[in-house]
């Protein structure tokens, strides 16, 4: 059985202890709420998109160390990125979680980024979550909520 060290890496606990980009953004920032119906965790993602770039992101809500640290790392990773970079990042992260994202498949469109061009950085620390399949939903909650916020910012 994989050890807890694989799951609770120091950098994960650091983001859990000191979450980055906590707070809210006022409208017109997009606001999406994500629920994990299994455990009751909730995550708020506030997303400010200007001219195709995520200029600001804030995270609210509550949850376990994995969902909270993943949300914190996500906020760090997407801030200042173009929408194409963010989508590539979501694909790479979900790929790391062994999730195939059909609706996010890189289209043939040459303007889309190759996934390998985006760096996961701290997010690599969440690699160990795959060994604990029950926790994959915790790690991906913030990312699915980010997708909802992206959709809201696109349609508003």
């Amino acid at each position, binding site marked *: *059985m994989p050890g*807890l060290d694989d*799951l*609770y890496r120091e950098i994960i*606990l650091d983001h859990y*202890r000191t979450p980055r980009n906590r707070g809210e953004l006022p409208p017109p920032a997009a606001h999406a709420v994500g629920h994990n119906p*299994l*455990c*009751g*965790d*909730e995550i708020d993602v506030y997303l400010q998109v200007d001219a195709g770039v995520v200029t600001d992101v804030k995270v609210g809500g*509550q*949850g*376990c*160390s*994995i969902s909270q640290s993943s949300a914190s790392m996500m906020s760090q990773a997407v801030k200042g990125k173009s929408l194409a970079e963010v989508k590539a990042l979501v694909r790479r992260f979900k790929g790391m979680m062994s999730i195939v994202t059909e609706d996010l498949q890189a289209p043939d469109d040459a303007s889309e980024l190759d996934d390998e061009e985006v760096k996961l950085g701290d997010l690599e620390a969440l690699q160990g979550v795959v060994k*604990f399949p029950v*926790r994959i939903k*915790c790690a991906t909650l913030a990312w699915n909520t980010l997708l909802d916020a992206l959709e809201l910012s696109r349609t508003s």
Partner: protein
Amino acid sequence: MTAALDALAIRKHFPIFDREIDGQPIVYLDSANTSQKPREVIDAMSSFMETAYAPINRSAYRLAAEATDAYEGARAKVRRFINAPHAREVVFTKNATESLNLVASSWGRTNLRTGDVVVLTHMEHHANIVPWHMLAAERGIELRWVPLTVDGQLDLTELPALLDGAKAFSFTAMSNVLGTITPVRQLCDAAHAAGAIAIVDACQYVPHNVTDVQAWDADFVAFSSHKMVGPSGIGVLWGREELLDAMPPFLGGGNMIVDVRLDGYTPAELPAKFEAGTPPITEAVGLGAAVDFLESIGMPSVRQHELAVAGYALRTLTERFGDDITIHGPTDVEVRGATFSFGFRGIHPHDLSQVLDQRNVCVRAGHHCAKPLMKILGAPATARASFYLYNDESEVDLLADALDSATDIFDFLT
């Protein structure tokens, strides 16, 4: 004098406890979720499928008659187990959730109109909330809620006012989160005094206590087999004959009719009226074996054992962890079962259960399908340890030791 129960001897009847994970035994503290199964239940189901399995109620050959006898034999055992007046009042469903849906749908649609009142409590499982929400959306009925006291019991001070004009009072006999055992007879009496029927969600109660639906004077009682050492896939709705008789069928199909014509149908008598399609036949046999198993031990002994374990758990966890542990629900074991939801040193329940799993300590983490109650408790999620007849005090100690180990990782939270 109730015979003392030997949990270690009882464990030997449960093959799953022969299993080790990582060379350690399983400390199964999740029986409020679902219980483990004794050899007697497993064998009864295997043997039935190997020697006597056949359709019920619809074929003339001897094998089918035997299968029908086995299925109806299980109904007779359940009737005796809950002291129901008649076996025909015992309806087999899929689980307690379906039983409650049956009542809300069939009794509710027949008897409730816009503005009618159904009273629930703040400690209900989603299974006793959502069916009423569905009916409220369809019928415009009003839902009223009995609140809780600070120690997690029902606050009955306003009960007569809440029940005033109500048509139904549907409540749990034992909370799956708080462990609280409610005063079922008193609640049934209050419902009847107000002219309402009393519906009891006894899913957490029946596996752990002597159940007597007549002593309760209840109108409907719902519970599941899988929490009382029986198989999943079968549950029970007991209802008063006159109420069940006056209700339309819930699901339509085979078995539940006496006649079907091009222009309509005539429903069957009880209980077939509410058992459309091929029922869980083998599971009924398993439930019958579960009832036999529990009766061979004696429900008074089960309750007495769980009182002792609950008392030991409350003392041990409080003494060892003091203010670091928040145990929800009553501190008086006389009004609670051995189900404990708790918060521990600020560690999220998901993380806590993950760490406990390293020592094979199995606890539930989450909202326990009772989100309104969790909101009232101010805890979006809790860990829950629930004990049954195969658990003993030594497993309380193992839980406490495992809790201590969680602090090594999450020491920064305290």
